[in-house]
């Protein structure tokens, strides 16, 4: 009889403990739209977050198909981080499809100093994929610090019991990033004032950070595929500006850039602009290393 009671008591204690542990030490379920956000979330949340992302690293983040499998990812998520500024036109449909009504959506563009916000009426004659300003702010590594701070804040609000853990990870990451910023600044020093042709208008934040001149884009307007007449225009721009590299996001076709290169002798550099966008690029820092080494090494 007594033995039975003790047994029951033990089971109860174990059950309570289980409930308690699952409440306190449960991971925060996070989904990010892009792998860059995912990497920052993992750096700060480490094993206290269960993170996933939607857009593949080798995929144009403007165009993501509405797949039910993405809805499944969002179904149990608590936090959803996005770049914002209209980059993820696909995000709302995925959220709706997930039917998750406990999802907190955090737009990481909130704290960013936005560039290229259109003045006046926007219409499709300008190409309409950057209607709220340029969303490619993650290519300025100083903005990664702002994004990380925003992510930290959201994780703290969701899981206050892990606040010390998140803050410590955040500080470690920021100090690593700060060291990298010094290294990148010095590597890019010699690029200051140089002219570069880019493929898509992803590069304004990066270029202004390092004092690069954007002499032109391979796309005639953001999101509009290259045309022969625009290529001809670029040919003249390249001659005039003395640009010696075309930097392109690696998910675009290099047909037009290679054509321009064969006419002008300009060098084409393909870089990933997302984590996992290329073999071996498994973190934001490695991605920026790759971009900066390739640009600074080729100017």
């Amino acid at each position, binding site marked *: 009889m007594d033995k039975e009671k003790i047994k029951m008591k033990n089971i109860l204690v174990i059950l309570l403990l289980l409930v308690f542990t699952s409440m306190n030490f449960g991971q925060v379920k996070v989904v990010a739209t892009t792998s860059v956000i995912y990497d920052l979330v993992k750096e700060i949340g480490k094993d206290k977050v269960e993170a996933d992302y939607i857009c*593949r690293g*080798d*995929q*144009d983040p403007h*165009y*993501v*198909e*509405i*797949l*039910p*499998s993405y*809805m*499944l990812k969002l*179904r149990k998520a608590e936090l959803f981080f996005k770049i914002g500024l209209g980059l993820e*036109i*696909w995000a709302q*449909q995925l959220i*709706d499809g997930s*039917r*998750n*009504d406990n999802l907190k959506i955090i737009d990481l563009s909130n704290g960013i100093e936005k560039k290229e916000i259109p003045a006046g009426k926007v219409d*499709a004659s300008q190409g*309409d*994929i950057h209607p709220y300003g340029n969303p490619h702010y993650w290519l300025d590594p100083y903005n990664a610090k702002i994004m990380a701070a925003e992510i930290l804040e959201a994780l703290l609000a969701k899981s206050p019991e892990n606040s010390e853990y998140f803050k410590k990870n955040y500080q470690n990451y920021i100090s690593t990033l700060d060291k990298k910023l010094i290294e990148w600044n010095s590597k890019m020093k010699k690029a200051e004032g140089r002219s570069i042709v880019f493929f898509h208008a992803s590069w304004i934040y990066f270029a202004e950070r390092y004092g690069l001149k954007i002499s032109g884009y391979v796309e005639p307007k953001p*999101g*509009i*595929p290259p045309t022969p007449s625009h290529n001809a225009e670029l040919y003249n721009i390249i001659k005039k500006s003395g640009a010696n590299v075309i930097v392109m996001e690696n*998910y*675009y*076709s290099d047909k037009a850039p290679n054509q321009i290169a064969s006419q002008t002798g300009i060098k084409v550099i393909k870089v990933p602009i997302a984590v996992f966008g290329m073999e071996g690029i498994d973190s934001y820092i490695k991605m920026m290393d790759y971009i900066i080494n390739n640009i600074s090494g080729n100017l």
Partner: protein
Amino acid sequence: MSKQTAVFLLLLFNINFAQSNVNPDISLIGTFNTTTNFNEGSPYKGKINFEDPSLEMFINGYLNPYAKASANIAYHEGSFAAEEIYFEILRGLPLDMQLKGGKHLLGFGKINTVHGHAWPFTERPLAHRIYFGEEGLNDIGFNLSFILPTENFFSSFDIGLYKGDSFRGIGGHEHGQEEIHEDEIHEGEEAHEEFELNETNSPVISARLGAFFGLSDYSNLEIGLNGAAGTLGKAGLDNGLIKNVNFIYGGIDFKYKYKPDTYKSLTIQTEALLNHRDIINELEGAEHFVLGDAINTYGGFIFFDYQFNKVFSFGLKYDFTYGIIGSERGINSLANDAGNKTSGISGWFGYYPVEETLAIRIGAERLMFDYEDGTIRDDETMFKMQMIFSLGPHKAHPF
């Protein structure tokens, strides 16, 4: 009616321009077709026929954090029609269910819920024309959608209750065509009109089980099982009984898409439909109907579409169905034809210079007819050129 609609549209645009903060999304889709047939004996053989352009206006937006409302108003050959008007409760319901209510395209198979302008091909599949009608299955009712608790893949179950007019071949643009036919009825055929099924109020039930599999980062597969059942009407039989004329549709669909990068994709898609229905026959001289045996017929299609260089696509489709395409609907609708068959082969080439803002498609369809009584009918060939513009906010592509 069309004047009222025009005023309504004007009002709507005014509201849209006046309010700057909470705007519904509005898109306009314009379609302009030219057709050319190559049928022996046709007075228009080889000539270009310029069809009236048609316009569709899609309006949708959130009503609140839980629900959305959508409307699709179409202008076609001089008249306006509300193609779709519905609301959706997206979240917040028990069991994570979604509720859709109003007039909308039914999720029976994959193609039916996609508007024609977004198909890679130019002609509605033959089996849809016979079993769903020229405008597809578009009905008034409710749909409940559930996500099933499968861990490793997405699966869903939908069940809906509909008025059933589109199954019975009533409503839509076809109404207009019926009226024309009535005018053309010859004296001798007048008795025909008496042989109509009496209307029924019993709704049609429609359900779908869907499963989606991510095969790799670049390829996905969706499979669906569909079913619908209901009563087409009541028939007064020669023996004095009133009989419910029932039908059951069963269907399977399959879609595979491989998209290795931004510039290329291959889609392979198929749908098949099985039709089981009660048959009543008219007998010469009889005052009422005579009950016949139930029939089982079927139809379906398979196609591939290959997109290359981002802006071009081409594809081929094979269609087969019971029933003769282009026949007039009789008392029992085309879907009752268990003797005659139509098959078709079509091909197309599409050009999409900037996403979906402009689309130009050239398509050809060859129809082959097989009559039970041995009637010989020449194959029919039609070329179509289709130009579509899409004005409005960018939308992401659903699988």
